[in-house]
């Protein structure tokens, strides 16, 4: 390689500049060709189902059909305005925010408790970890089938064992004020074990000698948690929060199986609203507009979290 270079240089320098640029470009392209061919299969599917889909959402959000068979016509921002004016959509956004906060905080808190309690590896802890992890593996639909009975009024598991303590038995899934919280219980049950894994991995990074020094200085368990463990787990917290937020938007299978968004939209979440618009009302324009708004919000959120992560890495 090094032998050929000195000979090639003078020839290239004497060529006209534009030709040189073209030549260099085509040479680079030729050198890159094998890589492009290897990337092609992935890029084709990404182009169809990620970038293409993204473009399609934008275009579809700008058009509307009067009836399912009628030709499309350009309506500009009408779909987006219609979605924003739809109380079912704004209700779903509010529900989704409540649902996101109400599932993320308890499941992350529980995950931290589990990880701290089970951080040392021994036979008992392994069994407990497996028990807490089991719900992560099963389909949301299967979890919903089990919880349908747990929440069943009067004869269900919850009423049978705990309901006796209450003066009035609530209808867990049928009551407008309770249904969303019942749905959140399932999500917490299903996800806490997953987040526990990340905290277990994060705890490995807590330096042993610092912990020892803290014991010797007489720092109690809360002080060690507050001043050593939690600061060390900051990246894990950030990461798990992003995943929990994404899950709060994308996991809606239990809404479909258990409540179909009811009673009167009390458990309607954004993705279920999109599904309803597309499949039940055949309104692709509105469904696309709602998708677009959700994607914009999510991308803003991920960009923000990436930036804070990058800042932290650069700063420390």
């Amino acid at each position, binding site marked *: 390689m090094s032998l050929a270079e000195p000979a090639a240089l003078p020839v290239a320098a004497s060529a006209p500049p534009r030709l040189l640029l073209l030549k260099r470009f085509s040479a680079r392209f030729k050198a890159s060709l094998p890589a492009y061919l290897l990337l092609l299969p992935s890029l084709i599917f990404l182009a169809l189902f*990620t970038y293409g889909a993204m473009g399609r959402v934008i275009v579809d959000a700008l058009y509307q059909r009067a009836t399912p068979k009628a030709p499309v016509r350009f309506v500009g921002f009408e779909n987006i305005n219609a979605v924003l004016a739809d109380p079912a959509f704004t209700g779903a956004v509010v529900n989704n925010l409540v649902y996101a906060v109400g599932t993320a905080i308890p499941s992350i808190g529980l995950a931290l408790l589990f990880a701290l309690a089970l951080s040392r590896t021994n036979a008992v802890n392994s069994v407990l970890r497996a028990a807490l992890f*089991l719900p992560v593996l099963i389909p949301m639909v299967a979890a919903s089938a089990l919880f349908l009975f747990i929440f069943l009024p009067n004869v269900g598991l919850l009423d049978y064992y705990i309901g006796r303590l209450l003066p009035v038995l609530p209808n867990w899934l049928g009551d407008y004020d309770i249904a969303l919280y019942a749905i959140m219980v399932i999500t917490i049950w299903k996800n806490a074990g997953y987040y526990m894994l990340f905290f277990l991995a994060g705890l490995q990074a807590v330096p042993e000698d610092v912990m020892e020094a803290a014991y010797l200085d007489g720092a109690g368990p809360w002080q060690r948690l507050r001043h050593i463990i939690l600061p060390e787990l900051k990246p894990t917290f950030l990461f798990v929060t992003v995943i929990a937020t994404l899950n709060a938007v994308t996991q809606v299978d239990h809404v479909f199986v258990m409540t179909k968004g009811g009673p009167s939209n009390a458990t309607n979440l954004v993705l279920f609203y999109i599904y309803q618009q597309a499949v039940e009302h055949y309104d692709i324009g509105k469904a696309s507009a709602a998708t677009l708004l959700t994607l914009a919000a999510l991308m803003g959120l991920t960009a923000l979290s990436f930036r804070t992560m990058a800042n932290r890495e650069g700063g420390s």
Partner: protein
Amino acid sequence: MKLIDRLFKDAPLATRGEITPKLGFALTVLLAIIWLIPFLWMGVATLRPASDGINAMAELMPSLKPTLDNVRDAWEIGDFPRYALNTTIICTGILLVQFVTITLAGFAFARLEFAGKTLIFYLFLMQLMLVPVLLIVPNLSLVAQLGLYDTLTGVMMPFFASAFGTFLMRQAFEAIPTELEDAALIDGASLFQRIRHIYVPLSMPSFSAFAIISVTSHWNDFLWPLMVINSPDKRPLTVGLSVFTATAEGTQAWGTIAAGTLMVIAPLLVTFLIFQKRFISSFVTSGIK
């Protein structure tokens, strides 16, 4: 108390007298038991005879006259063998195509220099940000246009390329010493031969980690197959179970629902209990999925 002391015997000496960690541990044990109750109920209710009546349905003590009637009913009402076959086809099909696409792309990112590498890297990264589940509406129109509505291929296609898998394989390939490849190069091995005989065999742990994540996540997919599939005989397990549950709920056949749910989740649970360590470590790497 003796038992708890034994569990904490490897804790640092200075902390063995502390009470808070023990309370935390006790709380975790309590919650782990609560976490298992839905599974316990599923097992007990599956074996409970219908003659025990609806009021005993929630009882967690197993029935004295266990029966397999519920399993038989679920087997007859729901078309579970067919659903299981469809789910198996979907998961295998996705995984096989993914293996090809992520190996090739992962190799390109790990070992080749090319123009626009950073740009293409970000193009892949975009898939992680635009969660595929959210793009169900445009992807459904595309699948319909390709003539793949109501086909298993239509269910599989959006997942054929995987940014997560590509990054995982890139990481695995970068860890392989270049000397091995140089030796093969001197022996005249072509690009594909080098990938096939050096990179792939040495990256088996990463492939199996990816396989676990890919199969469990597509085994559990629901909304997307629900939209694409119309014919009852093409339903995967999740869609089949939701239809089955809706039917059985009407007749209050909770024992049958428990049996059907058990059939759907048993394969995953058994595999998990056998390969527990593998599963846990794979799920830790799956964070960026």
